[in-house]
């Protein structure tokens, strides 16, 4: 029986100290209590991550395609209209997730490069402005607005900033997640921004291809859009696989269990492999293109959903949080 003075260092000069650990090394943590707090983000944030990615990459697509000839101009026009429509949908979706939506404008009382979310808000504002100018110019060109308003594009002066800001808007959300203490997001600081962008480009290209098919547009352009979509989706698949291997235990919440199953079914098997297989079918039908686009877009949404939910599970795992990834 150990006397009280032996375990109370203040009660005696002797203390406990022979330097040997008092507790077996296997005991780790505090009653399995989570160390980190779970992110509160729900459906509205997931929808914003998904739509914002398509919005930005549609701008990027408009820059890539350009207005060189009528076939291209049609694709670029669709992409610009997609951008402006999503730029009007995204802010309300984003504002709805705030605890105090009426204070949304407080986001713009500072310009803070250290805060990824603050940069994102300014980026979204700039993107919306350019997308608005591009849309006005496009409407003028399409005959819905006075002819003089064509000075607002669509020209390189709109397309280039739309593309660059679009790339930023699609990319910053991945950086935003990585720049947190959540282990699975932190360990993906290089992978998450990259595969989010790939998913955005795949989504924007498949949406553009579906729109073109519905309009009965150029088959050659549609093939090019599908080719770009497949390149982006293949890169996304490779990055996800590399991330799974790289993340190790930190990646468990995303690649194992319920979220892992959803990711491999909806994003990997259906969204990427399935859509590619359907595109490769030797059939000429608009339903083929529409189905493949729907599968790609579904996979893109599930990717964002899984990413957020995995972050919550990761926050609940104290063992991952004790050794935070660099």
């Amino acid at each position, binding site marked *: 029986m150990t006397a009280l003075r032996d375990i109370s260092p203040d009660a005696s000069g002797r203390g406990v100290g022979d330097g040997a650990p008092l507790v077996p090394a296997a005991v780790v943590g505090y009653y399995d*209590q989570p160390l980190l707090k779970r992110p509160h983000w729900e459906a509205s944030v997931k929808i914003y991550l998904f739509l914002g990615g398509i919005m930005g990459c549609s701008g990027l697509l408009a820059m890539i395609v350009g207005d060189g000839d009528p076939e291209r101009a049609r694709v670029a026009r669709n992409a610009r209209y997609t951008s402006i429509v999503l730029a009007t949908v995204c802010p309300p979706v984003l504002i709805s997730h*705030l605890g105090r939506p009426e204070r949304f404008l407080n986001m713009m009382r500072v310009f803070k490069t250290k*805060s990824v979310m603050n940069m994102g808000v300014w980026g979204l504002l700039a993107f919306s402005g350019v997308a608005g100018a591009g849309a006005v110019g496009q409407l003028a060109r399409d005959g819905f607005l006075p002819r003089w308003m064509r000075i607002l594009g669509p020209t390189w002066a709109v397309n280039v900033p739309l593309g660059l800001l679009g790339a930023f808007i699609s990319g910053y959300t991945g950086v935003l997640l990585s720049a947190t203490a959540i282990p699975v997001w932190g360990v993906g600081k290089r992978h998450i921004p990259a595969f989010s962008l790939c998913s955005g480009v795949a989504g924007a290209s498949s949406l553009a291809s579906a729109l073109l098919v519905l309009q009965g547009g150029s088959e*050659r352009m549609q093939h090019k859009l599908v080719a770009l979509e497949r390149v982006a989706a293949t890169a996304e698949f490779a990055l996800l696989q590399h991330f799974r291997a790289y993340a190790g235990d930190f990646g468990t919440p995303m690649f194992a269990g319920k979220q892992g199953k959803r990711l491999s079914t909806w994003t990997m098997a259906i969204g990427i492999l399935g859509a590619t297989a359907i595109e490769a079918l030797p059939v000429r039908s608009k339903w083929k293109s529409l189905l493949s686009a729907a599968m790609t877009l579904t996979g893109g949404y599930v990717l964002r959903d899984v990413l957020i939910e995995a972050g919550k599970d990761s926050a609940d795992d104290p063992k991952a949080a004790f050794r935070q990834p660099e």
Partner: protein
Amino acid sequence: MGNGFFTDTTLCIGCKACEVACKQWNQLPSDGYEFTANSYDNTMALGATTWRHVAFVEQPVDEHDPTVNRWLMMSDVCKHCTNAGCLEACPTGAIMRNEFDDVFIQPDICNGCGYCVPSCPFGVVDLIPHQHGIATTFATDGRTNDDAVQSHGGIAGKCTLCYDRQKVGFDPACAKACPTESIQFGDVDELKDRARKRVEQLQARGVAGARLYGVDETTSVGDLNAFFLLTDTPDKYNLPERPVLPSTRQRPGYTSAALAAGALALAGFAIFANGKTE
């Protein structure tokens, strides 16, 4: 430079007077009556309206006699980091460093975006639920904005290091209430000197595990304005061994995004290159 806390866990007796004093002074709602069966800890964690939390660790000392335990008790609190993840993440500038060098959430500015919550490497800050409207009296700089006086939830909450009490020269409520001076408040540099001496004293007495947490740190988070004297590894107290400042991941993240965008754009230009209408 700046005011902070030195929490000496070897002096803590687990009375929870700090928890109570904090709740009372800051008019924070109750955590409810939950029995966790985890030693005497029914609070379990810091939260949006729980700004002091006393951890209770019971450890067997004698492997032949399981009735002999040693107690580790620690009053946890917001660390008021030198490089604070929450402060950097905050998109509105609501989280600021005040004149006492403490990390403070301005309740009339915060719009409840929730980005600070996963950005804290210690899991301290959280969102106050709407039904837990708390009446705060942080408008200490002469502002009469009703919003600052009455906050009804939906915003982030954490320890203010009793900003309002410091303003009038009082010690924070928890430090004032602590009966054993386990929680000491004062100038951080003075506290650090005192803490270093205390560690030497304890080690001389044979407490080999005595160490400071949050002093002379080489992590990206840096030193903590609210630091601790521990006698076991940090994980036993639910603290990370080497906390990482989340914003250090921004540069690789942005670089990766830029590279991916560039590569995809190049692929796109190549695909759409061979150009004229047939």
